[in-house]
């Protein structure tokens, strides 16, 4: 019940802070752009757009969300509620994944993709990975500038191999790399089973790390300054 409430309120906060309005506008813009492209480009362009925005939105927005909660001391209060770090992290991940998947599915439909389910799955996995990375980075920073700098390495290791894999014949070993495996799904390709397994293991590891760091952040922020 508490998990459900957290999720509902996270969605409400995101709506209140204009996420849904922004993504309605961006989705229309992206869909119009994809529709205007030549047929042979559509699927690949849609894959890059989906992977770089809705799938990765958690990486960019989590910093803003957690920094906002830190600045308003909501995280300090969270530390003395029955909410566990697990519930807090999971709720953030689910709420952002929900927007990511809906936007990705609309973009895939605009591109005429015949593998919308694969796109949704790839987006879901990539969004989970990036949102968790966003939370991990956000727990360690105190300003938005720091956050932007700290996410650059994540962007490089996450985006470069994945996008290159769409255009080049990379070494087969790259298919085991989680960002490449997610991109394969987003592009409607059949991913390698080991790649999927490693992606899931990466998510478990990132989730565990995020929970640990959130708990630590709460400990540092919480309590009463007397």
């Amino acid at each position, binding site marked *: *019940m*508490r998990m459900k*409430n*957290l999720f*509902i*309120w996270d969605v*409400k*906060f995101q709506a*209140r*802070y204009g996420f849904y309005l922004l993504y309605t506008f961006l989705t229309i813009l992206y869909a119009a752009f994809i529709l205007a492209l030549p047929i042979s480009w559509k699927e690949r362009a849609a894959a890059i757009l989906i992977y770089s925005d809705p799938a990765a939105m958690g990486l960019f927005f989590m910093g803003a969300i957690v920094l906002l909660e830190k600045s*308003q*001391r*909501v995280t*300090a*209060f969270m*530390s*003395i*509620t*029955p*909410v*566990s770090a697990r519930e807090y992290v999971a709720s953030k991940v689910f709420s952002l994944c929900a927007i990511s998947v809906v936007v990705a599915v609309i973009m895939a439909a605009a591109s005429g993709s015949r593998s919308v389910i694969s796109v949704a799955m790839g987006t879901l996995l990539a969004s989970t990975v990036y949102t968790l990375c966003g939370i991990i980075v956000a727990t360690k920073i105190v300003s938005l500038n720091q956050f932007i700098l700290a996410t650059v390495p994540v962007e490089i290791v996450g985006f470069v191999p994945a996008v290159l894999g769409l255009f080049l014949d990379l070494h087969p070993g790259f298919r085991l790399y989680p960002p490449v495996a997610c991109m394969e799904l987003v592009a409607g390709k059949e991913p390698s089973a080991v790649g999927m397994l490693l992606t899931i293991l990466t998510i478990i590891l990132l989730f565990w790390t995020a929970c640990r760091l959130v708990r630590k952040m*709460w*400990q540092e922020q*919480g*309590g*009463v*300054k*007397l």
Partner: protein
Amino acid sequence: MIEVKNLTFSYTNKPFITDMNFDVKKGEIFGFLGPSGAGKSTLQKILLGMLPGYQGLATVGGTECRKHGDSFYQMIGVDFEYSTMYEKLTARENLEFFSSLYEGKKRPINELLERVGLENDADKKVSDYSKGMKSRLNFVKALIHDPELLFLDEPTSGLDPTNNRMMKDMILEEKKRGKTILLTTHNMQDATELCDRVAFIVGGQIYALDSPHNLIMSKGAAKLTYTWDENGERSGSCRLDCVADDQRLSKLISENRLLSIHSSEPTLNDIFIEITGRTLV
């Protein structure tokens, strides 16, 4: 409700809290008084289960603080000195959100808002609230899940005299409802008025622990001052333990000529300075 025995805690090699002992009974208002850096924050973090690396015993509601589960916080309400609200949400939405994090029966939001005089501003964004309004909202947020134990940090800070009175009345009402309250304040008048017992904490140690009345009386009411009319108002004084020897006072009393008479007890602040050698800053 709270039991602390031989509590020692350290952030470094040097002990920060040393061999602390006290207990807080159910339904009691217990005050922590001490200057900044005295160890009150650390003590509170230990009691809130946030610093598990202590030695000794620290139990809240029978649960050892270092071994608590998430449901531990079901019985605790904390009123931070600063606002802990989503500024873009209204007061009502904030209370609805924080209320949804707890299990069990909740207290009616409208009733609580009305009690602190915020019923007409319930649908205003918290960012539009004044400091005093945020302070009152923060307080009722701590009550929303009807906790057994309340940690109140400077609850009257930033309030005008009317709201200050209202807040103190509410704290006393919570006590009547059987709640245990841990109060931290620099306001000695509040501590004297509200607390059943207070602990003076300095340098991670408790220097004194008793009721404000006992602490004040233990130092004795130093002197008696009185005034009377004799070609204008005149005043006199004598030591409280020598009242019977003051002939003038006896005469004034027998002639009903006293205009005023009062003992000048030391304040809790005086006692704090005398016992700890520190001021409450």
